């Protein structure tokens, strides 16, 4: 019996293994994608590719926007410039009228021409409330096609900053294919067989990868003399850090956008692995990590207390410890390095803060926080004990380490903070309901304007459930008014922008409603074994964002592909 069973199971193995290949049949015949013409990327996709719907901007398959669907403009945050993309030019005809002119000769991949009707249609789609940018109709009055290539938008309240954000972040979809779709088909369909205008076409996918093939008819080849270098792009669903690191060092993956602890040693030790900067912090900054105090709770409702807490934190210890210098301490205003120009240095010099335990202690003492019961920790001026909990998601090891350091720092000046690591979903619940003392958050990403950050910090009114902004439930009408004023400042009026931002920063630094910690990196490490000319800060190298993260192609990450060169000829 033993022998027979053994053979039967061996046969079964082969049978099942063969049955395991469920991916679509490849058109390339035998073998695989030629290595020299294929770019392997990873770091964005967490599960099997599930949809290619550009409207569902939280989970479309890597590359859906950027490789297939394209926006009117790109915004290059390193140069601080808008790059006309599907649009050729834009103009504010008057204060409330905006006109955009499309390039000539742009075609959808099914051969139909791109027209102004497509642009208008893309915004008309937002009449469906389930479309992520549906709030545009809160301040947009009408959209119409003036002629074949020109679309006109009339605004009730022209939020120039936000509109500029829209022009590059929202991809245009083809009206001729989408016009008959119901709300469900628009916001809840997988959109198989995506038809876009971009540099790549959908080729194939399976449970653990997405494959793109170059679009030979991409408009930019003629219009901008640009060409995406790789014939194929294979985006690999995230695996464990160990696997990713191994694939990278063996040259099986060309671009990894994962946070790999200790990658600095690999970059230093392995000549074929590089990153944007040759030395610390190695990575560009993608977002600011903030310490958010719940301002509805005592004593976090007291600006002096918040200031003392901020002053007690030694960011350098976090940067050098858990991050081994892969990140940089944030500016006291929390604005990303790309927005350096908007930081009012005078205001920072006057109201800024830095790590200073003595200062923290004296702020506490002056504001009446004293250790009255002799337990080594301060009590509130009313004599109540201060016992705060700092929460970060369990499993985020770098943040867990950082939280330990922050608690130690705070305890050193007499503020009793302890760290807790709830499961991430539980933490999201607590954060949204305002049921926490202190939490670390970095959800707001790099964009064209600091307005997006102020919207994140000061947004009013505070709702029962705060799911995306103002987690600390900080209420300050003046700051919110200034934020709205900033939203309505024309993007080219940098003087007025700076002026408003400077006033915001002054109040912000006095009130300290939210404490900037460090800049989280645009995690990105690449192998030069098969592809060269990667972005870096070196002279002559391309200065683009080397990433496949969702919504970063609109920030010019897609341009990285046009600059790549095959290694070794």
């Amino acid at each position, binding site marked *: 019996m033993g022998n027979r069973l053994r053979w039967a199971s061996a046969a079964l193995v082969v049978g099942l293994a*063969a049955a395991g290949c469920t991916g679509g049949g490849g058109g390339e015949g035998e073998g695989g994608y030629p290595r020299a013409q294929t770019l392997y990327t990873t770091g964005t996709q967490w599960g099997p590719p599930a949809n290619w719907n550009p409207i569902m901007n939280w989970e479309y398959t890597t590359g859906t926007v950027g490789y297939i669907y394209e926006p009117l403009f790109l915004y290059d945050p390193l140069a601080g410039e808008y790059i006309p993309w599907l649009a050729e030019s834009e103009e504010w005809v008057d204060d409330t009228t905006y006109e955009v002119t499309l390039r000539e000769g742009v075609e959808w991949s099914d051969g139909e021409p791109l027209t102004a009707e497509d642009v208008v249609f893309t915004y008309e789609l937002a009449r469906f409330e389930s479309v992520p940018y549906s709030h545009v109709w809160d301040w947009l009055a009408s959209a119409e096609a003036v002629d074949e290539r020109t679309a006109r938008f009339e605004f009730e309240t022209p939020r120039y900053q936000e509109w500029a954000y829209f022009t590059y972040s929202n991809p245009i979809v083809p009206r001729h294919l989408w016009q008959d779709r119901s709300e469900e088909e628009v916001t809840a369909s997988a959109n198989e067989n995506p038809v876009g205008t971009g540099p790549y076409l959908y080729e194939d996918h399976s449970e653990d990868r997405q494959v793109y093939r170059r679009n030979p008819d991409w408009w930019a080849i003629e219009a901008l003399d640009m060409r995406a270098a790789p014939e194929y792009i294979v985006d690999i669903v995230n*695996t*464990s850090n160990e696997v990713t690191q191994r694939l990278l060092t063996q040259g099986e993956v060309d671009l990894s956008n994962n946070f790999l602890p200790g990658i600095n040693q690999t970059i230093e030790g392995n000549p074929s692995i590089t990153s944007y900067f040759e030395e610390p912090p190695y990575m560009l900054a993608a977002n600011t990590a903030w310490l958010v105090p719940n301002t509805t709770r005592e004593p976090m409702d007291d600006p002096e207390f918040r200031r003392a807490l901020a002053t007690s934190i030694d960011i350098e210890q976090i940067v050098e410890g858990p991050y081994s210098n892969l990140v940089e301490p944030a500016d006291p205003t929390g604005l990303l390095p790309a927005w350096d120009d908007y930081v009012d240095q005078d205001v920072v010099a006057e109201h800024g803060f830095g790590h200073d335990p003595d200062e923290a202690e004296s702020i506490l003492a002056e504001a009446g926080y004293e250790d009255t019961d002799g337990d080594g920790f301060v009590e509130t001026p009313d004599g109540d004990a201060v016992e705060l909990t700092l929460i970060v998601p369990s499993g985020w090891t770098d943040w867990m380490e950082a939280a330990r350091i922050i608690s130690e720092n705070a305890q050193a000046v007499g503020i009793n903070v302890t760290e807790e690591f709830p499961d991430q979903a539980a933490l999201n619940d607590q954060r949204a309901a305002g049921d926490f003392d202190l939490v670390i958050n970095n959800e707001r990403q790099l964009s064209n304007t600091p307005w997006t950050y102020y919207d994140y910090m000061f947004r009013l009114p505070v709702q029962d459930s705060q799911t995306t902004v103002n987690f600390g439930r900080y209420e300050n009408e003046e700051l919110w008014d200034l934020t709205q004023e900033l939203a309505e400042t024309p993007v080219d009026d940098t003087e007025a922008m700076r002026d408003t931002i400077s006033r915001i920063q002054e109040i912000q630094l006095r009130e300290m409603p939210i404490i900037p910690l460090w800049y989280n990196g645009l995690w990105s490490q690449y192998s030069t074994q098969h592809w060269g000319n990667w972005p870096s800060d070196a002279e002559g190298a391309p200065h683009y964002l080397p990433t496949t993260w969702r919504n970063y192609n609109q920030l010019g990450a897609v341009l990285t592909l046009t600059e790549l060169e095959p290694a070794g000829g």
Partner: protein
Amino acid sequence: MRRYLARKILIYALTFFVAVSVNWLIPRLMPGDPIRTMLSRGASGDEESMERMRAYYEQTFGLDEPAWQQYLNFWTSLARGDLGISVWLFPQPVTEILLAAVPYTLALLLPATLLSWVAGNRFGAFAARSRWLDNTVLPLGYVLTATPYMWLGILLAWGLGIVAGWFPTAGPYGFGSIPGWNWPFITDLVSHWFLPFASLFLVAFGGWAIGMRNMIIYELEAEYSTYLEALGAPRRLVRRYAFRNAVLPQLTGLAVQLGTIVAGALLTEIVFAYPGLGNLILEAVNNRDFFLLQGAFLFIVIGVLIANFIVDVIYVVVDPRTRTQMQGGAA
């Protein structure tokens, strides 16, 4: 026999009902809101449109209904073979996601379980014969069976994959391969399959080998063996009888162990980035994807129950005593 089977089937049906209900309930007791988890990955930070989208998708998933209604809906759609739509991999139907993943899990589980059981029993019985083998196999077996699946997986990946470079350590097939019925692809598939299979096989193998070795020694010292030997029966005959008796507890052991083996396979899949149920369950938990979680556990529950049922039936076939008892009971 019929009564025996009928009773078994009733028990299995009850187990199924309870297990599936618990699977339905547990994810919903966890804190965390699946819709918010899903939407918070997006770029739109506008609080108002977020609220509208949340209402919309809650309705889409039927999460706005009272819990008892959701529970009823679950059973009615299950009866139609509909497991719902995944929240995490929206808008893919759960059934499709699972059907794509199950072959990979089965391709690991079935051969690993069966081969390790057969080979472990053979080897254990063989080892009980010689002092030398016994001294080496016993400790090795203990080490193997005590090794967590995940850890052995990492060791194998490091040793045979990275250091020796014989086997790839991630994915179901090379990232540059195009699936098709050709030899290069099939060898690619098998070489990716080997390490996860081996780590499952080895851990289970150790356990079975030790179990069998102990049972055989026990049986060889039983009175019927001594009696047979005293009668002058050949050694091989005695051993064959001992083996038959020793295999019975091992069979029961297999039924009991199935759950653990499945759990081991899930961890192994995560180590080798093998796209089976393991990775899906992990991410479904993280994303509070009730529907996918429910579906994945449903598959596992059904799988374990079927396997147990088969073991039950085999037991009747290989152990004449159960048959006699049943006939006695029926008479």
